[in-house]
């Protein structure tokens, strides 16, 4: 009985949480412009999305491309900057280390809107024209701390002598970095990259304040403008459905693999 109640509670929350997503997914299979009107089953919205032949505003696909481009560039630069920074911070001591670690925490504590407004003021103050570059710089600002946090634990568990050993054996610092450090830190860099990538994809507020007036739209700002105008572009429904499914499948695969690895570890330690 208790078990039943516990399960029922969990599933009730899940059903309520997923109702809007399922609702969008169901109505992605009908052509109707207005959400909630069922005009028979059709996959037209999906094919519109692929061919780019939209009922609504065609700039949706441009927004999707911008979102991906900005996220890729920002995540990649954050990964490099954050990894090098983590190595530096790891070798700092005392007050200096505390100060830089604190600095690294600031963008994570700040709500998006503060990051957005403050960077907006920065670009205005510097007379920097706002567009792709300002958005990418802003994204690097709030993504890099997460890379630093992902790489730090790997540095703690790494033997500090192997880098020195490589240098002693005649490697140049560059070779020692790429052939010794990077392979050791790879998994931390990768999870930092993924974290940075998803943070950038999810962002709305920071992009909103730093994109300037050149008409640059990411998916979030596109949805915002579209919703304020009233009717949502119908092709957003299949797009959302695809995104939900991709994220869900990715997370399940990652977590099942982690669970498997954890179980394998447990077994190893038992015997």
């Amino acid at each position: 009985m208790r078990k039943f109640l516990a399960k029922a509670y969990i599933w009730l929350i899940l059903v309520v949480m997923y109702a809007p997503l399922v609702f969008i997914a169901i109505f992605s299979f009908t052509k109707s412009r207005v959400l909630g009107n069922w005009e028979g089953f059709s996959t037209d919205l999906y094919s519109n999305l692929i061919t780019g032949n939209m009922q609504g505003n065609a700039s949706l696909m441009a927004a999707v491309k911008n979102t991906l481009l900005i996220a890729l560039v920002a995540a990649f630069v954050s990964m490099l900057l954050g990894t090098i920074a983590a190595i530096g911070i790891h070798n700092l001591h005392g007050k200096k280390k505390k100060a830089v670690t604190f600095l690294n925490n600031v963008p994570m504590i700040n709500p998006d809107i503060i990051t957005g407004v403050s960077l907006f003021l920065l670009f205005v103050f510097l007379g920097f024209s706002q567009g792709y570059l300002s958005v990418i710089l802003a994204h690097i600002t709030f993504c890099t701390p997460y890379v630093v946090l992902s790489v730090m634990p790997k540095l703690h568990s790494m033997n500090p002598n192997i880098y020195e050993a490589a240098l002693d054996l005649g490697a140049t610092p560059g070779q020692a970095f790429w052939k010794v450090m990077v392979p050791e830190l790879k998994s931390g860099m990768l999870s930092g990259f993924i974290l940075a990538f998803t943070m950038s994809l999810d962002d709305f507020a920071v992009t909103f304040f730093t994109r300037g007036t050149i008409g640059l739209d990411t998916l979030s700002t596109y949805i915002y403008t579209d919703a304020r105008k009233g009717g949502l572009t119908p092709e957003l429904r299949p797009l959302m459905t695809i995104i939900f499914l991709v994220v869900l499948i990715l997370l399940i695969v990652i977590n099942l693999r982690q669970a498997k690895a954890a179980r394998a570890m447990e077994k190893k330690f038992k015997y």
Partner: protein
Amino acid sequence: MKKRSNWSLPYVLFMVIFVVLPLILILVYAFQDGQGRFTLANITKFFTDKDSLSTFAVSIEVALENTLLCILIGYPAAWILSRKEYNKSAVTIVLFIMPMWINALMRTLATAQLFTVLGVGLGKGTLLFGMVYDYLPFMIYPIYNVLSKMDKSYAEAAVDLGATPWRAFWKVTVPLSMPGVWSGVLMVFMPTVSTFAISEFLTNNKIKLFGTIIQENINSSMWNYGAALSFIMLIIIGISSLMTKDKEQAEGGLI
């Protein structure tokens, strides 16, 4: 070991330009008038303007209610998820954290649309529902993390020593899980105060939150007043992170 600490220099330089300087600029703009002269007018404007003050009060109220609801709904869920006898599958946990990885605007819009189609009038009720819906995973996940790592033998020891399971839960499990609750509070409270767009969608512009008036001022070129409002928000962040600082250890983790 020599000089590798210098590797942090590019990042420090980057952070000074893109984090420290912008925050200083908020301060500078907050205490300037349109002509760049020093003034306290922006700050006094906030404390004398009824609209700003009531928006501020509503934001704090909504954020408190949202945080409380998230704890009330989320704690039991996290507890059940952390117990092996009720939940064996990693997939259920993924289902709970998945919304964290989806654009909040998209989820909010989906919720608002569902309300509209169901004929539910948009207002305070839908705002709270949507907020809980958006932020519940951020409360459940840190609590779940702490609970599932917690040594179960503490609670068992309490029961062995004669406590009822109920008493053991309140006196042992709950206090030990407080770091998770605090990191959940931090991840729910401040973001709720500062959201914009979300409250507009969920109430059809009827209820404004603090984030919305910051955005409106910045967008209508009232930079100085917008900066002053941001400055006030920064002070609240400072206070709330000081209050939770000792209580929350960095056990949260996002993946």
